[in-house]
């Protein structure tokens, strides 16, 4: 029996998924009856744009796309000194393996996202905003477009919203379906109609962004939290969570667990509780043993069971930015985008890593040489090892390649490709060596 069974289950504060099971929530009427768009009424009447930014700063909301940068601070960087238009862009290009939380909001609760877009646009002084959505999510695009039409029809978008004097046009733009377009500068390039290649920073989008104008790009989940913050106040939001990880976080849990799905957790929840309690993942399938977890989408370091449940210091690992990163990349990982991939003891780490490497090789934009060449090289070496054709030298070579990609690329895709490889070899080296010695996967029959 697992020790987790004695852990008390606490209900998380529901901010993003509160009404998600209400039938017809995607329609304006149902959403409005449940209190939707009240934050827009309240904010446009009582707050100046700078006060909205200050409120978001005070709330401690951090970007939920993966990097975890404080949202209010990001808004604060926007260049308001120019007469150029400013743009607010929603990053709905979710496509990382293991991460599937944003589409849930877009599909079931699009008006919450639109409400957040109005608030963010107002704070930044944007008159035109965009929701950039991954092309494959065409059914979600249709839902959002319908919701935008309804918001226009009811006076929440368009000219002189609610008689406040503030006007906003909102468009939903599908992308071509490249993972790299989730990187904010590549997203901006793609939105401009160009090939989705990341730009070299600086200048940052807050200074030179869409159409060379000041731009803020935020994730769907980040934007969807804004209505609650403006309705309930920054203090109420920052009272949820722990340390510098405030509020709630959507976690898309998948892999060898009994209850895969999307969960809204209060930041600071123990990882052990998240994996084993019936309220969340419900434990490992078939009563198997936990082997490893990728906690924040495929781009973060993988951790073995002993390090995901407890830090190297022996403290319980919590679902928070700080706790998951405790120990650096030697013994820690990242909260990332919240794609929680659980692996039991039937999992071949090499094969799993090969899947990730194939993905990053396929999705590299090809602009900079370490990422363009290194991701493909790593995939080929992993394929050799998995097929039983690898050598001991290949294992060190993998580490060397990942080390030379990390930090040397234009955008973080190179890091995203390198970290899983480096961490997998660090924590599961024996498994790689067994592949080489046996000339086959030790877990294959």
């Amino acid at each position, binding site marked *: 029996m697992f020790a987790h069974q004695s852990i008390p289950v606490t209900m998380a504060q529901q901010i993003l998924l509160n009404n998600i099971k209400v039938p017809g929530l995607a329609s304006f009427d149902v959403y409005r009856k449940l209190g939707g768009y009240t934050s827009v009424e309240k904010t446009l009447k009582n707050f100046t744009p700078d006060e909205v930014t200050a409120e978001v700063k005070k709330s401690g909301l951090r970007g939920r796309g993966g990097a975890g940068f404080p949202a209010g601070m990001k808004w604060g960087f926007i260049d308001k000194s120019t007469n150029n238009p400013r743009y607010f862009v929603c990053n709905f290009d979710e496509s990382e393996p293991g991460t599937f939380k944003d589409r849930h909001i877009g599909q079931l609760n699009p008006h919450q996202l639109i409400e957040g877009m109005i608030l963010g646009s107002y704070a930044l002084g944007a008159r035109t905003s965009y929701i950039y959505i991954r092309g494959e999510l065409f059914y979600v695009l249709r839902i959002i477009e319908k919701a935008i039409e309804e918001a226009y029809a009811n006076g929440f978008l368009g000219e002189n919203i609610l008689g406040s004097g503030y006007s906003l046009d909102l468009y939903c733009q599908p992308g071509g379906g490249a993972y*790299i377009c989730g990187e904010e500068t590549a997203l901006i390039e793609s939105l401009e109609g160009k090939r989705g290649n990341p730009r*070299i920073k600086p200048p940052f989008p807050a200074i030179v962004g869409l159409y060379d104008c000041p731009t803020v790009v935020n994730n769907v989940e980040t934007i969807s939290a804004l209505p609650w913050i403006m309705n309930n106040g920054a203090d109420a939001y920052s009272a949820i969570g722990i340390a510098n990880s405030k509020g709630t976080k959507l976690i898309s849990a998948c892999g060898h667990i009994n209850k895969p799905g999307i969960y809204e957790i209060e930041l600071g929840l123990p990882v052990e509780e998240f994996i084993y309690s019936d309220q969340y993942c419900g434990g490992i399938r078939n009563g198997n043993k936990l082997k490893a977890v990728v906690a924040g989408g495929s781009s973060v370091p993988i951790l073995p069971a002993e390090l995901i449940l407890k830090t190297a210091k022996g403290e319980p690992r919590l679902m928070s930015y700080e706790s998951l990163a405790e120990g650096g990349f030697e013994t820690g990982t990242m909260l990332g985008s919240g794609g929680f991939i659980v692996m039991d003891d039937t999992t071949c780490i090499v094969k799993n890593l090969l899947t990730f490497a194939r993905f990053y*090789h*396929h999705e590299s934009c090809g602009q900079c*040489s*370490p990422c363009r060449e*290194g991701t*493909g090289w790593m995939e080929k070496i992993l394929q050799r090892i998995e097929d039983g054709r690898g050598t001991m030298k290949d294992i060190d070579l993998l580490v060397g390649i990942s080390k030379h990609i990390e*930090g*040397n690329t234009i955008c973080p895709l190179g890091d995203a490709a390198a970290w899983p490889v480096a961490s997998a070899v660090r924590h599961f080296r024996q498994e790689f060596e067994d592949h080489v010695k046996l000339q086959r996967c030790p877990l294959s029959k």
Partner: protein
Amino acid sequence: MSLVKVTIDNIEVEVESGTTILNAARKIGGAVVPPTMCYYSKLEGSGGKCRSCLVKVAQGSTKDPRPMPKLVASCRTAVMDGMVVQNITSPEVMENRRAITEFLLLNHPLDCPVCDQAGECHLQDLSYEHGLVDTETVEERRTFAPIDIGDKIKLHMNRCILCYRCVMVADQLTDQRVHGVLGRGDHSEISTHITKAIDNDFSGNMIDVCPVGALTDKTFRFKSRVWFTKPFDAHRDCPKCSGKVVLWKKGDEILRVTGRKDKYGELEDFICNDCRFEHKENTDWTIEGPRKIERHSVISQNHYEKISKPEIQDNNS
């Protein structure tokens, strides 16, 4: 424009504010200048892609002396007053440059013995200075059939390192651009749009800016190794361009015409296709004299110059 002081490999230099680390290093010259495979000062927006010019910023500025956490692309990073940069004095930079060289060579055929760019190839130089003796890869390189992308230009995609310089030339110098980058990652390739050929007046400059032998001049291919030719500065009255070129002659025969390049391998002026491809007679040109070639270049073979011996200083006296 205000001046700022920057120290590169322990050498201090004063440059205008907004200057990149690379150009500050070029002001010093010599070994402290980072190599560049994609940056080209004459092409707007170039640089930052090959990563061979990465350097370490050991001190951000006088105001904020914190070091930068990662290596930075010197061609795209502006200097700050009091910045301290390490290039050849940083083992980390040297190790990374070696790794970058290996990445660049990963899909590049070592066909220097038959490549028309041999002797003028920046990757060859980079490999010689920073590469490994042995390769660590056993994987097959990607292969493409050579194709004509216009009546005067041959594309050997096998050799391309995707520096994007030729795309920028096409974008910035010519109208009706018909070629670009297709595909992603290491499947990327330079290609013309379907059935299109490059026949713009300035398209030949794509050959000059290519750092490797991916784009070659069909009027010169396999005519001679470059070090067996003699370069001369020459000019003509041209209504389209400056008309200032280098003639590459073998005996009295003009085998090739190119633009004039500076010591960093960058064109001083872009020249038109008429000058480059259509004027191969001596009577077409006013010859100014032999082209000065850097002594370290293989092209300087057979072009010996009399060197005055420096006086030996006796420090003991």
